[in-house]
């Protein structure tokens, strides 16, 4: 660990060898503007906004990808540097659709920030902005090419983190665009709807399909009974948009504001997360006992489901038939809940607040209507809910906290941790252990499957059986495990896969930015919710027990099968 002595703006600094100029500057609180740089991604060095002057170098150097060397003398604030940065951003602005006021990223846009920070008061170059049609062919994601600044972050996340490759750099020179093949709609390529591209976009070139107006419409319709469910990961992230620290738990405030907005009932998706554990845990045991297809893989992440349908259809039988908690909720809301409260299911509208963009596509899958109606009607991302709150004028900071409504209001710590990678696995094992052994699980914190690592493994003795499990988050990590299965090298019983890195707390519908540091804080929040719960195992949830008694009968029973389980379909990557 050699140190390197350098000088930045006349200040002597000693930093570790291999540090980049950008990192070294950060250390001494010098802010350097960046656009293509993203802390969770590979270095790109293509926007050139972060250039600095290095003594002895004929040209300005990009600070993001230039490592410091012994004796380097750096200037970050010379006239030459300031003018170059300004000119580069002006070039970007000349080609950018600058309708900021109506842009989804207004006030949360890296380009806007940089323009302000650099003091850009005019653009000297001709406007060369291209009028490109909005691509809203995809049920989850909208692309606006006229806003794209070609930083390449979305391409990286789609190809390298998710292993999908729905978009790529097309053409060259100023005709270069980031787009699907043939510059056709995003529905013509195997996009899995994960929305990770949205999370890394520095501007408003990619965003979720807007369902806010659809929801306002049903809320205004007095003939409708509108219920809403809130996913586990939303409660630890939405606060960021209102000045709370990442990971702050604002569950009670969300319930309260959803009621104020006008939802008739506010329910907790954690309830059906608990229910998923019962069904999925029993499915696993059933497969193990009856020689069913193993390893079994989780099915709560719709981005993952779409991925496996496209890229590994031969493994579809390994995927649990359990619907995701969102869909279990929808099916129950329009059956059990409707019957119990004597509401005509035809008039029930189910809205979900999800950290996820793929949920928008999940709810419109053909088979997701086991209640006799489309089980879930509208999905709003965390970000969309934030916009609704702004539109409604409610001050979340001052609002009182409220509890979720019955019958889907009582939940356990096991359900809470669904929001983080490894959570479903941990929750399932808490239940499976006790079902199989009949003994109480003493240490319920299965820390080996927690954390931000891409792939995690564990072996847990459950009675006579050593249950081998694996957890993958991010689809490229999933790919590694799937290839192992195909090669016969994976002797796991149970695998949890989440499409998004970090799990749902890093979902494609979450507040931006959501880099690794933020994700870790959200994760802490998730485990704090777990800790704060009196009941931390799904099978101990009294409301779940009551649901089986009153309605479902038994896990994997007839009604469960009809309402809570589903099937998948092989999808052709490209029709030839």
């Amino acid at each position, binding site marked *: 660990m050699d140190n390197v002595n350098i000088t930045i703006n006349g200040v002597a600094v000693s930093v570790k060898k291999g540090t980049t100029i950008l990192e070294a500057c950060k250390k001494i609180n010098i802010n350097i503007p960046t656009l293509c740089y993203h802390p969770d991604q590979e*270095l*790109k*060095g*293509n*926007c*050139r*906004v972060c*250039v600095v002057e290095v003594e002895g170098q004929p*040209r*300005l150097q*990009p600070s993001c*990808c*230039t*490592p410091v060397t012994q004796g380097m003398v750096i200037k970050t604030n010379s006239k*030459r540097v300031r003018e*170059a940065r300004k*000119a*580069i951003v002006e*070039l*970007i602005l*000349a*080609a950018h659709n600058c309708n900021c006021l109506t842009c989804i990223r207004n006030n949360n846009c890296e380009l806007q920030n940089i323009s302000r920070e650099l003091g850009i008061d005019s653009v*000297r*170059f*001709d406007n*060369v902005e291209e009028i490109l049609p909005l691509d809203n062919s995809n049920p989850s994601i909208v692309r606006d090419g006229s806003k794209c600044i*070609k930083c*390449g972050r979305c391409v990286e996340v789609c190809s390298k983190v998710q292993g999908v490759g729905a978009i790529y*750099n097309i*053409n*060259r*020179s*100023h*005709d*270069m665009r980031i787009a699907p093949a043939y510059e056709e709609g995003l529905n013509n390529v195997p996009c899995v709807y994960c929305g990770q591209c949205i999370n890394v976009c520095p501007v408003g070139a990619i965003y979720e399909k807007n369902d806010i107006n659809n929801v306002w419409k049903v809320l205004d319709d007095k003939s409708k009974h509108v219920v809403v469910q809130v996913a586990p990961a939303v409660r630890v992230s939405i606060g960021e948009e209102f000045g709370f620290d990442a990971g702050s738990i604002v569950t009670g405030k969300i319930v309260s504001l959803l009621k104020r907005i006008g939802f008739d009932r506010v329910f907790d998706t954690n309830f059906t997360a608990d229910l998923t554990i019962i069904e999925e845990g029993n499915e696993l045991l059933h497969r193990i006992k009856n020689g069913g297809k193993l390893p079994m893989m989780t099915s709560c992440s719709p981005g993952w489901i779409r991925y496996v349908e496209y890229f590994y259809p031969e493994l579809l039988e390994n995927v649990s038939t359990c619907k995701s908690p969102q869909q279990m909720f929808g099916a129950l809301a329009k059956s059990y809940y409707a019957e119990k409260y004597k509401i005509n299911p035809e008039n029930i509208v189910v809205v979900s607040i999800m950290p996820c963009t793929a949920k928008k596509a999940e709810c419109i899958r053909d088979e997701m209507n086991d209640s006799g109606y489309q089980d879930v009607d509208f999905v709003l991302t965390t970000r969309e809910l934030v916009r609704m709150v702004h539109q409604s004028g409610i001050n979340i900071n001052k609002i009182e906290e409220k509890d979720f409504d019955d019958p889907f209001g009582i939940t356990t710590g096991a359900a809470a941790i669904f929001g983080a990678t490894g959570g479903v696995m941990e929750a399932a094992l808490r239940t499976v252990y006790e079902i199989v052994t009949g003994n109480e699980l003493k240490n319920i914190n299965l820390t080996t499957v927690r954390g931000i690592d891409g792939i995690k493994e564990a072996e847990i003795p459950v009675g006579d059986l050593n249950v081998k499990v694996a957890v993958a988050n991010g689809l490229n990590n999933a790919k590694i495990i799937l290839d192992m299965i195909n090669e016969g090298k994976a002797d796991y019983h149970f695998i949890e896969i989440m499409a998004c890195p970090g799990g749902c707390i890093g979902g494609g519908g979450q507040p931006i930015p959501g880099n690794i540091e933020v994700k870790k804080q959200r994760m802490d929040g998730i485990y704090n919710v777990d800790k704060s719960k009196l009941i931390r195992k799904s099978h101990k949830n009294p409301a779940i027990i009551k649901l089986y008694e009153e309605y479902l009968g038994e896990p994997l029973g007839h009604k469960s099968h009809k309402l809570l389980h589903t099937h998948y379909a092989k999808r052709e990557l490209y029709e030839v």
Partner: protein
Amino acid sequence: MILVSKLCGKISPLSLKDYKENGGFEALEKALFKMKTEQIIDEVRASNLKGRGGAAFPTGLKLQFVASEKSDIKYIICNADEGEPGTFKDKILLDGCPFQIIEGMIISALAVGASYGYIYIRGEYPQTKDLLKKAVNILKEEGFLGKNILGTDLCFDIEVRTGAGAYVCGEETALIESIEGNDGRSRFKPPYTANKGLWGKPTLVNNVETLINIPYIISLGSEEYKKFGTKSSSGTKLLSISGCVANKGVYEIEFGMTIREIINEICGGVETDKEIKFVQLGGSSGAVLPAEMLDIKIDFDELNKLGIGLGSGAMFVGDESICILDFVKTTMEFFKHESCGKCTPCREGNRHINKILNRIIEGKGSNRDLELLVDICELMKDTSLCGLGQSAPTALLTTMKYFEEEYKEHIEGFCRAGICNLKKGAVVYG
């Protein structure tokens, strides 16, 4: 043709017999059986050979960088992506004596410890590609390539790859991307290719002409080799000369000749009765020099002092019939077409330059446009990611310097060459 190109056209390019009878593979045998690998590198270093592709980086140093890397596999790439407009000297060498280039590759492989090589040839030369493939196959059959070359421990194989029409792939990292099957967009450096090149492994990338020098350096010895050329620039240089000279073509010259000598003594002067107006040295990415500067010597040090690069060694000679702005416009359209689109200054800068130039040529330009052009050019030079964007504005900047009055005339609505759709003639100043 005095040194490296002397076999071109003299022997049948695919006749191994011809090649051997003319000293072919003597250098390889010397390197294999009489020299240690360090000695090979020392010899190349001592020869003062500088890269002939355009950057003029000392070849011996490059060899040493790759040799000192520890890696399970190292690669050698022969850069035959001769894309610089007006440059066709590598084609002459590749078509004329492919074995010699491959011999240079094998000796380099021995020196740096590389086991696999690629010849990356531009897609525009399909016949040359076929020829190279045949040459490689012949050498494989004859034991000069493959396992245990000439019965020694040296194992080295070569694959021929092609580009598909992208100037930027002449830049070594873009070329590597292209071999890897990607869109050829340059990578940022460091890491340098010597450390992390093809598939992240240490990679030596050398131009065709650089490689063909290596057998000569080894067989002649560096001392003898250095007798060619000047102190700062040893050896010879192939120049591709085009434009309005009487005899266009590729010529091998010793370093130290002046541009004027080359035009008059080698190319037979100008073919028309007009005066030379300018020479662009180094291809489209090179400086445009006015007639007053033709006594510059082709010598790295001398050119360096003037801030001029020799580039690939292409020379366009233009006479008075040519309008500087219209000529530069052609050049800038080329760069606009060839920019890979990755970095902002090059992607956006080139299109604005073209827009502004068109405006000026149409007589709608202003003095502010001239200032803007300089600002964009300086920005591209200063901040572009790779050599393409950094050197693209050279022609524009140098003509704005040396032919300033013609730009001003166009702003005023005149084109002295009568090419642009403006009034013919010039403004009389003062």
